[in-house]
């Protein structure tokens, strides 16, 4: 859970609007009849980030994604994709965008490969001679190479999902949008999706993943956006979000008294840890972890372990969505 790269990222949260943005929504709003699906959402997706879009069913995740991709016209507000306005500039941005939205859409009477060949034929950035190779590579990447000749009709839910993923990965993309990518996937499939997201991230691509599986988002994302009833209730770096408001640093040490004395002398709120393990808890408004630990060690406190006290994403999510509902 608390792998060090995430911690490192957490210590330097990227400022929301400072860097280049892979996608941006300003005041996006969409109503269907009297239902407000998305209500004035402002969202920045930094380039190179992996943004997890969270929200209960019907919170507007898919509608927001569809507006960002130009599939649905917004009633109000503007959207940008790779720096181009959507939908008017979508033709410039979309060739560099791979997307799996609202489930895999394929023709049942065609084989997996034939379906992908049809999609690949419409990809502007694929040369005529690259099509076959790109299709095979994508099938291989999602583990469908063996089933490529079978009709889509006979695919299991997981295989259909993999094929949809392959469609988004036909060529190197700058932005990949995956709407519920692990739907219907078995644990192995879910791991594959995680691996693919990580590969995309390592390659410098931006990824937007919508999911209702919090653990998955927590495992793969650098940024989170939480939607509730069409409104954005939280957005930002994952680590920063998790730390904000839940705070605290657990320090395991036998020298509880010395530690408390040292910290309080430095003006840092602290109290002895409840429970069996001897230690202290540093208040949430304390200095960064490294600074606190250094202070304690200099004072001669034997620090056995120091860990940021973190809320699980699940708690955060529950708190965010309960607060607003």
């Amino acid at each position, binding site marked *: 859970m608390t792998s060090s790269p995430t911690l490192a990222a957490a210590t330097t949260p990227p400022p929301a609007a400072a860097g280049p943005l892979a996608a941006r929504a300003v005041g996006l709003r969409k109503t269907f009849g009297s239902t407000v699906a998305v209500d004035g959402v402002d969202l920045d997706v930094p380039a190179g980030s992996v943004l997890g879009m969270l929200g209960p069913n019907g919170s507007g995740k898919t509608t927001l994604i569809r507006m960002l991709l130009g599939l*649905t*016209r917004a009633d109000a507000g503007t959207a940008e994709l790779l720096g181009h306005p959507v939908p008017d500039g979508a033709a410039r941005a979309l060739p560099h965008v791979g997307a799996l*939205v609202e489930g895999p*859409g*394929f023709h049942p009477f065609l084989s997996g490969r034939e379906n992908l*060949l049809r999609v690949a034929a*419409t990809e*502007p950035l694929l040369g005529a001679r690259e099509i076959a190779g790109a299709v095979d590579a994508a099938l291989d990447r999602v583990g469908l190479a063996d089933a490529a000749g079978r009709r889509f009709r006979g695919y299991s839910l997981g295989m259909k999902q993999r094929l949809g993923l392959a469609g988004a990965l036909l060529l190197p993309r700058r932005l990949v949008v995956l709407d519920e990518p692990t739907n219907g996937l078995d644990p192995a499939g879910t791991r594959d999706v995680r691996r693919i997201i990580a590969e995309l991230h390592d390659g410098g691509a*931006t990824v937007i993943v919508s999911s209702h599986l919090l653990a998955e988002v927590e495992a793969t994302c650098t940024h989170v956006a939480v939607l509730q009833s069409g409104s954005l209730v939280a957005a930002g770096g994952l680590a920063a979000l998790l730390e904000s408001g839940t705070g605290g640093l657990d320090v395991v040490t036998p020298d509880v008294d010395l530690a408390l004395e040292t910290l309080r002398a430095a003006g840092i709120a602290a109290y002895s840890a409840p429970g069996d393990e001897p230690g202290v808890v540093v208040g949430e408004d304390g200095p960064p972890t490294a600074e606190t630990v250094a202070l304690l060690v200099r004072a001669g406190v034997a620090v056995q372990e120091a860990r940021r006290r973190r809320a699980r994403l699940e708690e955060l999510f529950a708190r965010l969505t309960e607060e607003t509902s």
Partner: protein
Amino acid sequence: MTTAPVLDPVSDAPRAAPLGRLLAAELRWVLRRPRTLVMLGLFALIPVLISIGVATAGATGRGPGLVSAVAGNGLVLPIVALTLSMALLLPLAVAMAAADAIAGESAHGTLRGLLLSPVSRLRLVVMKAFGVLVVATLATVVVAAVGVLAGLVVVGGADGQLVTLSGTALGPGAALLRVGLVVVFVVGQLAAVGAVALAVSSVTDHPLVVLASVLGALIVFGVLSAIPALEWLQPWLLTSGWTAGVDALRDPLPLGGMIESSLRALCYVAVGMGLTTYRMLRRDA
């Protein structure tokens, strides 16, 4: 963390897959669709069935009706078969193709994929119109070609000639030209049906709605054209010129009816494609 450039003036130029490739993909898709193939097979049966019916009914054509004109006069068969198919089956086949083209793709979620590739919405309309036109042409050509074969083999020609309704005899070359003319005429009429069906297809996600609309329109047009008090409506009804293909069996060839019907079909094509384009530029996918 390496960050890909977000705005790249060079590679961000608007791009599109070559139109030829899109049309080829559409063609492949249309021809791989099982129902297209089944439908073409059924259309091949129509002239065969007529020819068997005529051959068993006796060699001498006596009595009213177009079908009796086929007896002992095989080269008439393709034109008669096309005219009969025009009443219902060919328009329905085209409506089915148009239904699959947009409403069906939307229902399968594949329309989204095309738009995300991206295929511009205008090109999508071109692609879909092309696919429907291909189905219309194939179905027409199948009826005509099988009609010529069945006419010559099963019915037998009048000394290899086509006896027109006006009592003249045309040689095989002239007869085939007439058949070709009717094929072009019928494809033009079907294009009008297809354009309107595409317009319906562009507003719905349910392919059956398209089929039902076209079937309903055919019935309504049929009823309207049967009411004498509404005779002034005739020039507006697409169906009122659908029997003009029979004119190819008259000599000298009167082109007036077919030209008028074709102009009317052109108006329907313009309106249908206009509505389709208008709708597709705005449609959610």
